[in-house]
């Protein structure tokens, strides 16, 4: 990805060394993510999946950063980073399989929806507890450095995550060991109902990186090209032994925190509308149109193509059976413990009654 080209400013109003194909690939991923997101929210509302964590509004931060990576680089996403999965090439049907927790699910239905993980694209399995993946991500980067693989890790986290002790440990180890890691902080202004201003009184989140001896930069996280450029630079630095960087992407989640949340309890309509005008997908679309690379008919065609894909994926996955009750006992250890085999053998596999 991110193939190098020589000239800049080749497109009207656009300062980038990305090719037309690259730009369209990025746009496609953003649109897939947006449409997938919208569809998944609907599926949950319809009771067809149990839970979902939407990402609309944050596509630029996710996809711009992921585009700066090589396939053998590793990513540590949060529940919200659908865009990273999409850009890295996870099939849409696999994403739905996970949301449904069916037998096709790479997680085998063991995790709740939005707790993705796809080893084939180095997109490491998500846990719900905030910031717990960060020390692990640093550890992978430390291993890469020890093994001199020339690869890097990109770890994603929110603004709220910066308050956790595990954030602190991860950043500090990254600094001390000069680990090849880039932290992408998707500062969407809110940790559920808690605004950044109550999360910390640090001037910026990027400023926190200095406490660990490396650079933090704050960027417009809704401009996919800015995110890409900043990440590319940070990744190159990490790859060449320069150590970690934190990139604070200013962005916004346009939806609720999750399908269990009602943001009208804590956010204003005005704030939402302001950010709606900064919609990153729409923004790239306009940019491409202005640069003469995109038009309405291309848009219509792409949308219907993606929507078709989505519909077919859902149809396919809704037919897939749920994992059998016995699989619940599998995979706790490399080989099943005798105690667990006994529990399985003695189990009465009846469903719990509903109150």
């Amino acid at each position: 990805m991110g193939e190098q080209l020589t000239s800049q400013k080749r497109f009207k109003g656009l300062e980038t060394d990305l090719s037309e194909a690259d730009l369209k690939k990025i746009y496609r991923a953003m649109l897939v993510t947006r449409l997938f997101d919208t569809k998944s929210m609907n599926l949950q509302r319809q009771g067809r999946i149990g839970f979902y964590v939407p990402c609309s509004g944050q596509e630029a931060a996710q996809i711009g950063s992921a585009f700066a990576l090589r396939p053998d680089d590793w990513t540590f996403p949060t529940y919200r980073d659908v865009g990273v999965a999409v850009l890295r090439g996870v099939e849409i049907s696999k994403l739905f399989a996970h949301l449904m927790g069916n037998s096709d699910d790479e997680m085998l239905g063991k995790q709740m929806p939005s707790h993705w993980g796809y080893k084939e694209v180095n997109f490491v399995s998500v846990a719900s507890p905030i910031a717990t993946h960060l020390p692990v991500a640093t550890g992978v980067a430390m291993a890469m450095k020890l093994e001199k693989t020339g690869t890097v890790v990109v770890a994603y986290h929110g603004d709220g995550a910066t308050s956790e002790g595990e954030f602190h440990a991860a950043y500090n180890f990254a600094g001390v060991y000069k680990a090849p890691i880039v932290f992408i902080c998707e500062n969407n202004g809110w940790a559920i109902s808690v605004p950044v201003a109550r999360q910390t009184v640090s001037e910026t989140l990027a400023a926190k990186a200095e406490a660990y001896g490396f650079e933090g930069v704050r960027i417009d996280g809704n401009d996919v090209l800015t995110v890409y450029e900043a990440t590319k630079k940070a990744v190159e630095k990490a790859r060449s032994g320069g150590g970690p960087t934190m990139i604070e992407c200013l962005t916004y989640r346009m939806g609720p925190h999750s399908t269990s949340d009602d943001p009208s309890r804590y956010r204003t309509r005005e704030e939402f509308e302001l950010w709606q005008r900064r919609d990153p997908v729409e923004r790239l679309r306009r940019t491409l149109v202005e640069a003469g690379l995109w038009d309405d008919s291309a848009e219509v065609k792409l949308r219907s193509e993606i929507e078709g894909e989505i519909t077919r994926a859902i149809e396919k996955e809704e037919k897939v059976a749920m994992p059998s009750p016995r699989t619940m006992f599998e995979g706790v250890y490399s080989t099943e413990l005798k105690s667990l085999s006994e529990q399985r053998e003695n189990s009465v596999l009846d469903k719990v009654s509903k109150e």
Partner: protein
Amino acid sequence: MPTINIVQAVNQALREEMRRDDRIVVLGEDVGKDGGVFRATEGLYDEFGEDRVMDTPLAEAGIIGTAIGMAIYGLNPIPEIQFLDFIYPAFDQIVTNLAKLRYRSGGQYSCHLVVRAPYGGGIKGGHYHSQSSEAYFTHTAGLKVVIPATPYDTKGLLLSSIRDPDPIIFLEPKRIYRAVKGEVPDGEFTVPIGKARVAREGSDVSIFAYGAMLHVAMQAAEAAKAKNGVECEVIDLRTLVPLDTDAIIASVQKTGRVVIVHEAPKTSGFGAEISAQIAERAIEYLKGPILRVTGYDTPFPYTLEEYYLPSVPRVQAAIEKIMQY
């Protein structure tokens, strides 16, 4: 008496007690403006303001650690951990400070506070929104562990807990937050900490349960009666530390048959302690093995959670098994 559910009982207890005692401070993630992700603190922010209902940064060690500080300074903090599954960043504060401060200071300092946390499965929450880790806390000397199963007990035990001078882990069975309703008096009343409740009398089998499992146990008891004419005694433990061993032993002496039910994984779950207490104090009364119906020794699964949680048929099977001895 008004009929309310468990989350309303929590809310009512908090509101009434905050009106009575202005040293009470509620703190946690989303407990303020949002009223808590389960609405347990709904309305408190509006009534008591941001100094007494604090939306904190996202750091459980900070929430519980600062609550301990407030407590030793004389306030009466009630930290909320959004899901029990997220308490582990604060585990050091709990084990190192909360449980030991009184003892280690030779009684100079103590921390009078209640950590509230929704716990348990049944809401399709997967690994990290379903855990029942009460056993960890029962093994940590210095803590009390309280788990209500009904709206009445929720309010009565929460008020007792808030007034108790010791640190308390108060676990709320979120699966039945709204599903279980019952009559709860307005105003002040307490349920004593350390006393179990005979939820159903019976002479054949003693079932020990707490939290959401109490209701599974009750249904299984009814089912066993209907199917086999077996009379189960169901004991709602209500507090795990201190444990009402007298009530446990009295029931075992009566029935001679024991089934223990909890959601947590079996190995080293609190059921093991109940079993060991019985095996230590009343083995001569036993007519057969002590059976445990529990979550399995796996992380809490998502799709299959309804098979993971102890169900009425699973408890019934244990009742039938023990009746065969």
